[in-house]
């Protein structure tokens, strides 16, 4: 045992070992902090995984005291905590929460912040690590980073670390992402930069690698020889409620969902096995997938492979819904897509010729995110005369949310004299098999950031490669003389007819969810 090792830490090895630190949240009075971050920290505390002498500082513009801030967060925690709210634990946990009022662009505010953090260190009798969480509006990221640097808060002292967590959206195109990356790189080293994508914190997203690489049943078949096509669906049955239209109309489905969440899922499904499970090994393989995406350049290629659409009036769950352009805070002449479907090809040995279909949209019939792997059909010679159901390929479905789990669809003989076959489903559900609820994605990701594990965070080259691909589509839509059309679908339907046609051209159909 060296003098510096914790001799008792072997008991913590099964858990994520967060290092003692102070977390500073910028944008601490916002919805994300109230709804997600504080309940996540509280639940990490409830599981006993918060590091000792933990401190959390909320940094925001509004004037308030520590007590008022804690009271507001307590109300949010009561509503949003996964494991409920325990007064005894909250009272202890909330003592670690403090509030610091400042404008994001005010250098004096950062000097005061530094004094506050130094004061915490004196009280602890040791210097702490520091984690800066950018949960503010994205336009504030750059000034915050500059101010942190000017105040000297971007480097750890006495061998401690200083890290930054950036919330999405990380840029709105390649140029802005590069500028933001440059600002981050000017302030923090890449190893200390954690770009959060909460999809990667979901249990089923993490299970994709286990499913693929730890099961001999799937690992040898995961390639173009056996897989016919892959579909990734992210359906939402909501529109622009709660004033979301203002932001959404400046982004659209492609930027808001595909560039980050769905490309992350695509990477996990299509990546080669990493040499080990270190953050860089995994991310090296993921970024190769994005780089290998066959580029869609020009309006013709985009028009042939990408369908964009807006919903018109319709109904969801029996409730009438207005069309996208009639939504609150949406431009009545908006050219922003509320739905997008893409046909992508990954030009690698493994995936040659296999189409990857992605669709994401608002006001669809149900809320569901899932990946389906459609296997090629066997020759079926012995069953040439047998009656087959219309869709007879084996399908493996990975449900990301809700009802996380995995289903495998296979053919079975129907009981009776005739040789008729029927699709049957083998279904694994996390909730019914494992009674314990999975931690929220943010709990896992915050612990990882405090523990220094960046595996589930996007790296700079991943983000920029994804934007590079997305930018070509955006350019074809918004900058070309002959942009592909904006299609329409009634709210409550499964998207525009053109998206169905996109698959029909290949002899495929969207999976029925």
């Amino acid at each position, binding site marked *: *045992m060296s*003098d*510096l*090792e*914790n*001799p*008792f*830490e*072997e*008991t*913590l090895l*099964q858990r994520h*070992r967060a*290092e*003692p630190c102070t977390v500073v949240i910028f944008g601490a009075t916002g919805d994300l902090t109230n709804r997600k971050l504080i309940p996540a920290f509280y639940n990490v*505390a*409830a*599981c*006993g995984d918060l*590091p*000792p*002498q933990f401190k959390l500082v909320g940094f925001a513009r509004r004037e308030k005291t520590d007590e008022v801030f804690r009271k507001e967060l307590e109300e949010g925690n009561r509503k949003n905590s996964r494991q409920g709210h*325990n007064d*005894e*634990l909250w009272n*202890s*946990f909330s003592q670690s929460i403090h509030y610091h009022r400042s404008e994001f662009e005010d250098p004096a505010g950062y000097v005061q912040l530094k004094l506050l953090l130094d004061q915490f260190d004196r*009280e*602890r*009798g*040791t210097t702490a690590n520091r984690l800066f969480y950018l949960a503010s509006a994205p336009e504030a990221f750059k000034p915050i980073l500059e101010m942190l640097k000017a105040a000297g808060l971007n480097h750890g002292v006495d061998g401690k670390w200083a890290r930054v967590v950036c919330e999405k959206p990380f840029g709105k195109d390649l140029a802005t992402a590069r500028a933001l990356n440059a600002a981050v790189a000017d302030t923090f080293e890449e190893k200390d930069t954690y770009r959060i994508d909460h999809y990667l914190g979901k249990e089923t997203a993490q299970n994709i690698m286990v499913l693929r690489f730890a099961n001999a049943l799937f690992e040898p078949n995961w390639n173009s020889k056996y897989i016919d096509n892959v579909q990734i669906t992210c359906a939402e049955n909501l529109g622009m409620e709660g004033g979301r239209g203002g932001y959404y109309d400046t982004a659209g489905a492609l930027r808001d969902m595909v560039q980050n969440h769905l490309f992350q899922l695509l990477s996990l499904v299509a990546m080669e096995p990493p040499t080990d499970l270190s953050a860089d090994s995994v991310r090296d393989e993921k970024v190769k997938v994005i780089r290998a995406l066959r580029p869609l350049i020009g309006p013709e290629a985009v028009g042939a492979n990408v369908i964009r659409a807006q919903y018109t009036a319709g109904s969801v769950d029996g409730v009438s819904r207005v069309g996208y352009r009639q939504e609150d805070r949406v431009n009545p002449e908006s050219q922003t897509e509320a739905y997008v479907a893409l046909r992508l090809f990954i030009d690698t040995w493994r995936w040659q010729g296999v189409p990857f279909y992605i669709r994401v949209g608002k006001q669809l019939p149900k809320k569901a995110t899932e990946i389906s792997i459609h296997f090629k059909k066997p020759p079926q010679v012995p069953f040439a005369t047998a009656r087959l159901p219309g869709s007879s390929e084996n399908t493996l479905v990975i449900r990301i949310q809700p*009802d996380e789990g995995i289903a495998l669809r296979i053919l079975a003989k129907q009981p009776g004299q005739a040789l008729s076959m029927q699709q049957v489903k083998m279904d694994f*559900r996390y*909730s*019914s*098999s*494992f*009674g*314990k609820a999975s931690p929220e994605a943010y709990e896992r990701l915050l612990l990882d950031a405090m523990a220094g594990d960046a595996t589930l965070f996007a790296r700079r080259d991943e983000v920029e490669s994804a934007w590079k691909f997305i930018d070509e589509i955006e350019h074809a839509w918004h900058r070309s003389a002959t942009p592909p059309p904006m299609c329409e679908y009634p709210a409550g339907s499964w998207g525009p007819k053109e998206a169905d046609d996109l698959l029909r051209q290949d002899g495929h159909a969207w999976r029925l969810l």
Partner: protein
Amino acid sequence: MPLSEDTLACLGTEVPLAKIDRALKELWDSDVAKTRASLINLAIYSEATESLIENNHLLAKITAENACRALLITCLPEVKPQRARAWINALCRPYQGKQIVCSEQISFVLEGGDAAQVQNVVFAHLDSDLPLIVWWQGELTKNFEERFYSRIGTLIIDSSTWDDPRREFASLGAAKAAETSHFDVRDLSWTRSHFLRTALANAFQDIKAREHLPKLQSIEITHLNTERCAAVLLAGWITQRLGAVLDEAQSGLVFQKTDGTSLRVTLIETLSGCALQSLRLIAPCLEVSVTRDGLSSFVRVNATCEGHSHEELLPADVVSDAELISEQLSRSGGSTHYSKVLPLMVKML
């Protein structure tokens, strides 16, 4: 104490042993709203009639979080003549408000039950391809024999319930050493100290506190008088992690540290309260205490180091046997820390 028919009625529907599978099938066919779920075979074995009701309740709690085929075996070897009875039951819980997910429970009362009969009822009623976890309650009697333990994946014991832990650990060691055995051992006495070990590890994440560890002079553990095994295991683990060696020449629990100085362990027994109530580590400029108040869900960690004090509240993990078992079932693989500390623990008993 003989089992009354009223007591046995709580086990569900009595069925002939030969018709258990058919009865289970009928149980599921009769209600399509129920989904059967199973990840493991969990067998509870007891030779105490008075534990039957309690075990039945335990299974209801355990299956709420762990989908399994549950086998509840009450074996009464001394009762004559030999007779075996069985009951089936579905242990259900709501899932997402619209569906019911159920585990199956098969209960056996084996009057005059011998090793062969125990093996037969267990091995004839397993959910195939799923691991077998056996919670063997009480002493490792003659029914715990090679043909039985050679087929199980995980053995759960509770050394705190043993009258003669030395003898039982010797039996267990012999079983573990058998060429055919492959089971992991999980001791609930070890699980009971999990929250204290975690709290201690957390407290020494602080480098300042770690600097004072080599100067540690004493360790005090307060425990319920029936939980000496849990306290000894905890003390053994701490001293082992510090590289200290038991000084068998001295009376009491005195250890010699790597620098030659002594470290004294004091175990304080109480007659009430939870199994492990407090732990104190004392050095000249350091005192770390982990305390659990009553049956609180939390432990308080107080650390005073070079004049700086701080307090943390951490979860106290689990209290009931059902929670302890669920904790074990949620972990994969055995505890190497436990295996390492066991020889020292036996010396300390």
